[in-house]
């Protein structure tokens, strides 16, 4: 299976472990990732706040490339995903306004969880699991941008997404139920309003702990970096220890597949996941 791949800037920099683990997982599952040729910025976080026109044009160009490539498109970054979904909707209704030439509109845009949570891939995932992550309890945290607004994201169950729960269960993890799957972590204010982050992310840590989770799992690079990098500071302010590693779902999938490269990803985490994994007998192999 071949699929177009739009990594966006995050996965080329800050979230390189997401990129690497995603590539590792795809390789294991015989999914061929074809990075979009000459892709450009999706416009998230700045363009779409300041210029309505640019907010569509930037992602539209990427969609036009993907459209020509013909395959479905996998976008691991939630912000990119949302921007390109917007553009796709616009292009489907009025392509001539945005691009030269036709727009076939046959490309389905997938975010990571929804991409893997399909019967054929789930079957191969189940078959590929070598080290079920038994005993590791976590919560699936989807964040907001891959789900809302549903008329753009086409999320099947935006208030209670389940795709990551399925994935984590398939690799043997204990997925704890909680009500905060899509509550905002505040990532977009991480630089401007740390006080808001302290409240929003802090509440998430509290809820995760209350739910009996030992870690959080996400497929959004903004959420991951926000929850990971701000955790110590929130702990200090709240006078408590959460010690909740924040994983990318693909990292854990690769771990369960017995991938030997995980250790280098753990090094990029602020909250060191190794002690937790070691306590579950999941860190010794590499």
């Amino acid at each position, binding site marked *: 299976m071949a699929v177009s791949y739009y990594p966006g800037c995050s996965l080329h920099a800050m979230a390189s472990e997401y990129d690497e683990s995603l590539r590792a997982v795809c390789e294991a599952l015989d999914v061929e990732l074809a990075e979009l040729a000459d892709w450009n910025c999706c416009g998230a976080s700045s363009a779409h706040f300041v210029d309505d026109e640019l907010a569509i044009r930037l992602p539209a160009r990427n969609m036009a490339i993907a459209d020509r490539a013909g395959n479905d498109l996998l976008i691991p970054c939630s912000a990119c995903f949302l921007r390109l979904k917007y553009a796709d909707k616009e292009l489907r209704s009025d392509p001539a306004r945005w691009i030269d030439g036709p727009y076939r509109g046959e490309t389905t845009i997938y975010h990571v969880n929804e991409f893997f949570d399909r019967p054929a891939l789930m079957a191969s995932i189940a078959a590929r699991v070598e080290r079920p992550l038994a005993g590791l309890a976590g919560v699936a945290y989807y964040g907001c941008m891959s789900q809302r607004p549903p008329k753009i994201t086409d999320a099947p169950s935006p208030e209670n997404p389940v795709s990551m729960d399925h994935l984590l269960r398939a690799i043997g993890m204990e997925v*704890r139920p909680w009500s905060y799957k899509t509550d905002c972590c505040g990532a977009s204010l991480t630089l401007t309003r740390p006080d808001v982050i302290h409240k929003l992310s802090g509440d998430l840590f509290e809820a995760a702990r209350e739910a009996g989770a030992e870690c959080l799992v996400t497929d959004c690079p903004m959420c991951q970096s926000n929850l990971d990098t701000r955790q110590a500071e929130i702990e200090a302010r709240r006078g408590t220890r959460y010690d909740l590693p924040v994983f990318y779902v693909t990292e854990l999938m690769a771990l369960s597949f017995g991938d030997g490269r995980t250790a280098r990803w753990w090094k990029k985490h602020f909250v060191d996941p190794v002690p937790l994994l070691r306590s579950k007998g999941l860190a010794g192999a590499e």
Partner: protein
Amino acid sequence: MAETRQVTNGKVGAVLVVGAGIGGMQAALDLANAGFHVTLVEETTAIGGRMAQLDKTFPTNDCSMCTISPKLIEVDKHLNVDVVTGADVVGAEGEAGDFRVKVLKRPRFVDLDKCNACGDCIEKCPVAVPSEFDEGTMDRKAIFKRYPQAIPGSMAISKADRPPCVLSCPAHVNCQGYIALIGERKFAEAYALIRERNPFPAACGRICHHPCESQCNRRELDEAVAVNPLKRFVADWVAQRRAAGDDPAPPPVGEIDPSKPRVAVIGGGPAGLTAARDLALRGYPVTLFEAHDKLGGAMRLGVPGYRLPDAMLDRDIADVLAAGFEVKTGKALGRDFTLDGLKEEGYRAAFLSIGCTRPAPLARSTDGSEMRGIDLEGVLPGLDFLRDVKLGKAPGLRGKTVVIGGGNVAIDVAMTAKRQGADSVEIVCLESRDAMPAHAWEIRDAEEEGIVLNPGWGPKEILGTGGKATGITLQRCVRVFDDQGRFAPEFSGEVSETAADRVIIAIGQRSDFSFLAAADPLWDESKRFIRADRRTLQTNVDWIFAGGDMATGPASVVEAVAHGHEAAESIDRFLRGEDLAAGRPTWDATPAPAPAREFPLKDRAVPERLPLDRRAGFAEIEQTLDEESAVAEARRCLACGICSECGQCVAACGAGAIVHDMLPEEVTLEVGSIVLAPGFQPFDPLQRGEYGYGRCQNVVTSLEFERILSASGPYQGHVLRPSDRNEPKRVAWIQCVGSRDAQTGNEYCSGVCCMYAVKEAIMAVDHVPGLEATIFYNDLRAYGKGFEAYYEGAKTKYGVRFHRGIISAVKERQQTKNLVLAYVADDGEATEEEFDLVVLSVGLRPSASTARLAETLGVAVDRFGFCRTDALAPSRTSREGIFVAGAFAAPMDIPETVMTASGAAAMAGELLHEARGTRIREKSYPEERDVGGEPPRVGVFVCRCGTNIARTVEVGDVVEYAQSLPNVVYAEENLYTCSTDTQTRITRTILEHHLNRVVVASCTPRTHEPLFQETLREAGLNKHLFEMANIRDQCSWVHFNQPEQATSKAKDLVRMAVARAATLRPFQDVLLDVDQRAIVLGAGLAGLTAAVSLAEQGFDVSLLERDAEPGGIARQIRHTLQGPDPRQHLEELIRRVDESPRVKLYTGATLDDFSGHVGKFKATIRQGDRITEVGGGAVVVATGGAPYEPQEYGYGQSDRVITQLELEARLADPGFAEGLREVVMIQCVGSREPERPYCSRVCCQEAVKNSLAIKQANPDARVFVLFRDVRTYGFDELHYQRAREAGVIFLRFEPESKPVVEFAGGLTVRVVDDVLRRPVELRPDLVVLSAAIRPDPQAEAVSHALKVPLNADGFFLEAHMKLRPLDFPTDGIFLAGLAHAPKSMAESISQALGAAARAATVLSKPVMYRSGVISEVDPAHCAACLTCVRLCPYDVPTVGENGVAYIEPASCQGCGVCAAACPRKAIVTRHYRDDQMIAKVDVLFGDVRFEAACPAVAQAGGKQ
């Protein structure tokens, strides 16, 4: 009244009512009582609808079930209402007055006429599914009664399509059925059920390839149910019991009929044994021939002992042999006997099932040449090897064994070779590992034991030295099958070699056809096979049938079993000369999907396996599940087919009422009109995911909470929360879930949720003292009659907290499962609060089946799916002759549903009045026998009620005891006394034994007394000579664990009943002449509408109006919010009254005097000096209301402060609105105030209407509406939304800080805005007051004249706020319009029509019967003390000129209050005379000197 067919103008005097909720039932009863035949079609299995699901009803807190249940019985017993449940309307042709409607009755699988509702089947049924009636809060069985009081009381069975396990099983063993039974620990029953279709439970439980599991729907969830291990478990369980000397499942034994034709079965494998058994069970003399010494075929000789020990097979075969057929072992076809010989011996049919016993030879090398080395020592066929091992003849092995072949046999051979001593075993096969024909689990077993797989190779040559095999040359196989799927292996050049001391070839097997001569007619054209018909298994030779492996090639045991069954069926048909193929069941149906609901994940039970180090010899590898694991595993079954057809109900039913093969039935009904009352379905809260419904256990819907409150609900009426069954202490209601909600497209207000939430909160507090109830709401819409007071009471008496504001999300705490709600507190701060339970007040919407109904009938619906109607013709649909009632028209509560139902009945009555009485059924009875002077001869019938009574009460003892009682001349017991055949029996017994009193000891008179009274009438006895003893509900059910005492109590109850029976006296119902005309008081909108409708229904009407002109307050209404012109409508009504020859309008008329009773009222009218007397059998009170003249806000001080009605008048001038700059409207002026504590209901709509009118004429005008709650219920919410969109500004104020209107310095309105929390100053040019509606000033006078009551607010009080909203306690007098309470024009019209329909039930016949159970005064004893006059709740007794009390028989309700209170005992209530009651007490207490204890009673008793 035998009305003959009259001129009907081609109209049919019958009506179809669709939907049997409270609306449908009311419409049906009104129509049937007005002379029309009614068919009441209901989608579910019982009538009662949503109301039956409710716990209590607002605002009276009456028990919903208690209120509705008499209605259910009335519908059930009505001679002219046919109830059709489980049915849908699927088509309607024709036109108004003459429709032909197709109704599809879905099978109930229970015969309604035979089922006596004893419920014995329910206990036996092993399948539980969520109860629809209980909204899934508890389970019911697959055979069920929708709810305990359901009508019809008969059970019904739910079935989906057949489950995939049953469909995929070649023998169609009822997997779901036996799994369900295992889940209920009914192991013997499970075993018997398996054995019906599979005679080898122990063997198949071990070796079946179980296609059932690979199709199991549970795989979608986690893993397939372990069907096969469960089968093995029950087989072994039964074996254990048998070993202990107890046989819980004795095998079926055939009754062989020697006169039947003889049948030969050749081959004692699974197919042959199955066929022989089936035929023996059908009575045929069967002989089975087997070539070997022992039976079992491939099961015995082809399956290694570590998979199937011989002892297990022997058990199964012993059961099969019990069927009773002859067995001849050691007899091989062709060797010891021939088919021709059998024929000569007299066998008339033969079943050939000789299996595939010849190994396929390895004939060719991979290069296509003849295989080399095949004859070397050490090369042997796999099948022979396995057989020899089984027979103890196989050689021990040493060194390395290579097995050629990739199928099951190859694996068996390899693992057996290991057990025979081979040091190493290798399997070589052509296929790749994934494509090997052996099952994956078999391959895994082999690998586990260290057997080496070498797939993808073909044998080129077997190598050897000295005549002994030493190895094999192999060639790489690249493809096994060609594109057409034919076996055509292709090889590459790659070659390898493997050493081998033994080579065992297991590449297939064939049948041994050596018994056939070359020219035998049995051969097919190829001369290689015997061809048998796939369906019937008949061969070329008609009397010979062939099946099992010889027909299919090597296959599985269960397929052979399937063939055995089919062969037996075919042979049976053949011998009876029937068509072999016709009507045989097909099994290629679509399997049922997994039930669409959540199931918890649960691991599959895995049987223990023998550890590798203990696998020496042929000990079984896989073990049997233990009992607990088996039961737990069985409970993983999703019961996809719902009913499993396990047959337990059939066995339990004493009445033979279960019909599993019942088919759907379509009927065509001829009706003149159709009334649609399909009701609503609650909004599905999964659409509002943020509330966590479906995820958080303690988030429930309001309807689920009704069930939680209900005594018949999941917690028997204790308020508990689902997660931990603890009492919740903090409960929140979230309003408007799926209402007023643009996101889900339900923008309308559901109208009822505020009130039911208030009620639920009150009931919750009532159930759990100290419970804190909080209602989060938008606007609290307590707009109905009595609602505002109820709402206030919730706050003040029950401490219910009301918080304005809608919750955005519900979060669950994982440790406690408590729920966290975030909201803005009164101080404006964001607040989080934790609750134990959250109730979602879900809205109302039409169901999917209602959408289909509307489409089928061509009835237009609006964008929400509600029936499209006109605001001023609220019952009319878009198709003429079809009318609508209840919540399909708009969201509405119970009384409004009842009113609209009566209204729809009136419309149908208008349409069909010419055909009234033409389709009704009447019953005639034999003349009543005069029993006066006869000594009492009592017959007693004691019911067993299946086992309901009999299992607790010794019924035989009770009968014997009854026979010993005085006056009893006959007593018997019945299985079901209520069954139709018992009624015939009772009738016969009455005649034979000359009985003059009958006692039935059974269930409750509430449902069954009318039935038995009917039987008495049919036997020529007066129906009052009947008495009932309730020995079920009040005895066997409540004392189920005290059988002795229960029996003794049953005797007491029977003794009491017999004693009273002896005192019973015959009397007749009261016959009244009916004056078939009506009197309508008031000619406003309601009165005019009622009068016109009554005239259209064919009745003369006297219409009285106080004013000089008809029209009333409606004259002041100039436009409606919905569009239609009210003035035009009113003029049209007045014109119709003027032109109607049937209506006589008296204007300027006052009521001087009023008298009479139902059927005959008289009113004296004064018009100036003119006095007129008018008569009628029924009266409609439509005397209207009046606008309140405000005292507040400076009304009257300035012409710039006016009322909404005055504004409406001014707006008639188109220029008026254009001149307005700013308008302030103030709501609740005179309403919701201490002196008028009710909501005037229409003022919010008025304000919205007039605001919109202003905005439309002058968009720049600013309009402010100062309100407390905006109560635009139902679709008026859409207009409220429109007003906001148009820029009308709504500001909320608290009653404590009302707006202030000041005139000094220009008109100023000051108000504290609730949202901004700061004062606002407005400077309008006009202040408009939404003034209350108050009762008509003369209501009190009318109330006195008619002796009908008013409520505390001064409006007329109906007989019952829920179910009799249009009736007065006094029969024959009805109520409509503002006289009842404030309401809109549409509601007045609907009510007026309803009142007309209610009146028509009285007027439709020239005579009427009323119950003869009434009170009578003995004038000789009456002291005229007026006690009865004061106490009668119906104001019936009067003291007339002769100085004694008189009770009008036509008016008396027979309640007995007067008789109980009369100090002189001058009043008796028929049928409940003192002697009749004391007789019971006397015999209950035996010789206790009752007289001494209570001389007054003794005296009275003695007198009678």
